[in-house]
């Protein structure tokens, strides 16, 4: 499903002294099957924007198109369950949503709300556990006896089990150990590549943006200040730094090489492999020049 924001503005507590305009004239399109990263300094409005993606928030003015369903302030919202089944949202620190006695029941909560029988929902829950890297023995454990990282996995399973076609992730790896982070990001990438799920990822990890995303939206103080392919956006390191954002370390490394040693390797390596390949190519070219000279 394609997602489109048209002139979206959002104000918290409008018409009070606490009025707080958080989103300003947001326009963008997220194509079906894409992997979009949303980045921005803390407080730039990312989480607020995400809540528009499954109609938890309605724009103060403007409209959000979710497929061919329009969300705007002047319309009575119906069929929201169809939308929420289609767009799965994993919020920041999702482990706070766990409440059931057993992990199995907690994961089965979503499908049951969307009309599955208890039996069917539990079967789905059992199937989804290995996907997030937990085995079936977890089904009957209490979610509150788990470590933080395991709770995170259960919470994510609770969203994946609804088989959404769009998966929205708000800093899903914050606070996980490095191995756990890698496993999580790999999982989302697999879902994207193997099942064609549209991924929308909010993150502060520019390395992840470079490695996985094919589209990138940059927010600053509630405005979209740039969007496009990460390779395009990361070209401007100075400007990104001026809005408190970074480029992937690989890009920074390549930029430093160019600046300090006049070494023109691959200019925008998004991954370590690309950087290494670039350096190897560069070294080989140099060897050839030296060899001939």
């Amino acid at each position: 499903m394609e997602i489109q924001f048209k002139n979206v503005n959002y104000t918290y507590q409008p018409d009070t002294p606490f009025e707080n305009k958080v989103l300003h004239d947001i326009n963008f399109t997220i194509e079906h099957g894409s992997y979009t990263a949303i980045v921005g300094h803390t407080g730039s409005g990312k989480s607020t924007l995400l809540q528009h993606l499954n109609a938890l928030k309605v724009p103060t003015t403007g409209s959000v198109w979710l497929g061919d369903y329009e969300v705007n302030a002047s319309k009575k919202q119906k069929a929201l369950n169809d939308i929420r089944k289609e767009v799965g949202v994993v919020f920041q620190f999702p482990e706070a949503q766990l409440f059931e006695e057993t992990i199995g029941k907690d994961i089965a909560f979503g499908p049951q709300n969307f009309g599955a029988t208890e039996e069917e929902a539990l079967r789905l829950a059992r199937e989804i556990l290995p996907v997030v890297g937990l085995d079936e023995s977890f089904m009957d454990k209490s979610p509150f006896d788990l470590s933080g990282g395991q709770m995170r996995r259960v919470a994510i399973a609770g969203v994946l089990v609804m088989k959404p076609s769009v998966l929205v992730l708000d800093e899903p790896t914050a606070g996980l150990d490095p191995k756990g982070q890698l496993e999580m990001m790999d999982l989302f990438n697999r879902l994207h590549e193997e099942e064609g799920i549209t991924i929308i990822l909010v993150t502060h990890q520019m390395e992840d943006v470079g490695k996985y995303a094919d589209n990138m939206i940059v927010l600053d103080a509630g405005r979209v200040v740039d969007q496009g392919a990460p390779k395009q956006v990361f070209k401007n390191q100075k400007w990104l730094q001026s809005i408190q954002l970074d480029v992937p370390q690989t890009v920074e490394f390549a930029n430093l090489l160019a600046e300090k040693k006049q070494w023109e390797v691959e200019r925008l390596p998004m991954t370590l492999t690309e950087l290494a390949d670039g350096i190897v190519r560069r070294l080989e070219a140099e060897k050839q020049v030296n060899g001939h000279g």
Partner: protein
Amino acid sequence: MDKLILGQYIPGDSFIHRMDPRSKLISAVWFIVLIFMASTWWTYGMLVAVVLFATVLSSIPLKFYLNSLKPLAFLLLITVVFQLMFSQGETVLFELGWVSITQEGLINAVKIILRFVLIVIMSTILTLTTTPLEIADGIESLLKPLKKLKVPVQEIALILSISLRFVPTLMQETEKIMNAQRARGVDFSSGSLIQRMKKVVPLLIPLFISSIDRADQLAVAMTARGYRGGDSRTKLRQLTWTKLDTTVMLVFLALTFGLGIGRYLF
């Protein structure tokens, strides 16, 4: 969540904002006592004038006071209907079957509305112009004499200010968890009463757990920073009683005399 006005402080620098929370608390309570002393129309008129004057002095738009009345409108309506239907009187204005509305009933109803509205607006002035923490400080200071009777005033005040401090946090948390459960297909606003009560479980349990976690963390943090109760604690926020506060107290004293004398004369 955004609509809750009770306990919503609105920053400002009006006369009322500048008053000491203690004199504001005393005034509010005193005013409520005065309302119950009022009997004749001109005494009501005087109290209405006081409230109007105070709302103007607070420089907060009238809209906020009206909003504070809204949630209570239903309660008010029921009281008035009962008052109209069941009060006895001689001058019957209107009769329908066994219900008769008398002039006395009508007058009583109007007086009840007036009292109700005056009390609500007066307490709203207090909460709109005073931060919850100031109120807690004020209460602590006013309760201090009770310490002689071994009432743990400081502990009570600490409990009060911690609870007040965490009300907004709790509301944010509630909204977050509601959002997460909505995303999993819960529709909190539909269904029968029993269904709705069931839907509260996925909200309450996570809230409970996070509150207990937070209390634990707070206790650890306070201990780590060497918190000890008792008399040796000094205050970060000092309360200062100024001429303004004394003046307000004198005004209330005058009002009380006025009303008292009025009761005997008329």
